[in-house]
């Protein structure tokens, strides 16, 4: 078993521009091997929070600690490329300064090695995201930061993309922090969910958070219930009266079943 190695710590992190703070008093710790997902309504400060972690956005208050020498792989929200710039996937990856073999390998890891010589302007939404993730991987990141990685990807592609992110975490043992709107999909591929609305409303394991009153207040009863059903499907079953009973042995083949005891 690996020791937990801390990659990022935020202490009371606050960012304000002119008016009220965009993020307010955020405390957060991210360890190697963790997948942390930030969810929250529009304008909740999600992007500002990860930009602080990336050191693109300066904090107005509080502290941030990054593990010295940690390499960060960043997958931005949407890459809008000027069609006037001729660019192949190969060239785009090699602009990291990594050797060609490493770039090819990274592209294979995200399952799009056939695109190596393609023009970056002719990629579909899902292909573009995989190329962007490959580019982040090529740099051997300790921490992978993704801003809505499934945006512009069709629904089947989205599930596959979150699967990929989890697989990559297992292979590379890096830390992952991402923003997502796809509550249903992301719940299965994350260790910790942070519900952000300027401050952290609630945070915890995905199967716990949907019962949290703060979560229900932010996202509404309906969303919370639909998520709750989604998880409990894996963990336990309901009797005809709605009472909770323990799931049978089969359910324990699911990955999130080791949380069973604490549930």
């Amino acid at each position, binding site marked *: 078993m690996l020791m937990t190695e801390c990659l990022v710590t935020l202490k009371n992190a606050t960012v304000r521009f002119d008016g009220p703070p965009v993020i307010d008093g955020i405390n957060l710790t991210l360890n190697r091997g963790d997948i942390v997902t930030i969810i929250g309504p529009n304008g909740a400060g999600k992007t500002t929070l990860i930009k602080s972690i990336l050191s693109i956005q300066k904090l107005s208050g509080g502290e941030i600690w990054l593990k010295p020498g940690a390499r960060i792989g960043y997958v*931005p929200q949407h890459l809008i490329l000027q069609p006037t710039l*001729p660019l192949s996937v190969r060239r785009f990856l090699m*602009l990291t300064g990594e050797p060609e073999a490493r770039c090819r390998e990274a592209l294979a890891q995200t399952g799009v090695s056939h695109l190596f010589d393609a023009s970056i302007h002719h990629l579909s939404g899902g292909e573009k995201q995989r190329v962007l993730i490959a580019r982040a991987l090529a740099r051997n990141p300790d921490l992978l930061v993704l801003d809505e990685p499934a945006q512009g990807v069709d629904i089947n592609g989205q599930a596959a993309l979150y699967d990929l992110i989890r697989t990559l975490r297992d292979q590379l043992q890096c830390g992952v922090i991402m923003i997502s709107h796809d509550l249903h999909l992301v719940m299965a591929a994350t260790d910790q969910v942070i519900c952000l609305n300027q401050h952290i409303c609630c945070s915890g394991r995905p199967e716990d958070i949907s019962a949290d009153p703060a979560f229900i207040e932010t996202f509404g009863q309906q969303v919370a219930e639909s998520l709750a059903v989604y998880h409990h499907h894996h963990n336990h079953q309901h009797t005809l009266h709605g009472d909770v009973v323990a799931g049978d042995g089969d359910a324990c083949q699911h990955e999130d079943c080791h949380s069973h005891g604490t549930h």
Partner: protein
Amino acid sequence: MALIDSILDDFFWRALIGGLGVALVAGPLGCFVVWRRMAYFGDTLAHSALLGIALGFLFQLPLNLAIAGTCVALAIVLVILARSRTLATDTLLGILAHSALAIGLVTLSFMPEVRLDLSGYLFGDLLAMSRDDLLWIYGGAAIILTLLYRLWRGLLMTTIHEELARVEGFPVERLRLALMLMFSLVIAVAMKIVGVLLITALLIIPAATARRLANTPERMVLLAVVIGMLAVSGGLSLSWLSDSPAGPSVVVAAFTMFLLVYGVVRRPQA
């Protein structure tokens, strides 16, 4: 040496050599103008060149230096004002471009002792190229090409995605400043060729033409240089044969090539 001397004694050859030197740097910088959508920005800097000339006369500075200095100052003012977001960037550029031009013209009118061929500055005076001008052009080109070569990967990366470049440790602010300095320098040297009003054309048209033929950024730069050089040679020949104004003839030649390439090659390469 005698041969070079006799070539440099001929105004046509001086014009050609100077023009080719400008095309050498207008190619790569024109690509950045096209990639980063800075056409209007380049135009604004070019307009301020006339203010630079006025200030050069006023303070008795070398004109090329005054032009480059004014462009740099304006570029920095633009970056600061654009950051404060009180006005949309294109409005801001429009205000500064024409105000700089107007202030330049008004200032010049207060100096009756300065006898100045205004149309030469507005549309270029290629055939009046002196040996000093050639030194300026090739000195400037050497600085610009060295900078481009050394900063290439960072410049390209910030052009593709500024935040990605920042996360990967490129000094984004300093690269932007370097690019501004290079633009100012190229405007100072290109002014002699095509004048304030046509500089943007010399930057953009060869680069846009090259886009259709190139599949990597580097090839696009190389092709833009070649196309720019062809435009200079073609324009000068036209001017020589039909006694047309040299600067506009160069732009007409570039535009003709643009039409030809876009007519023949229907799809971009990559």
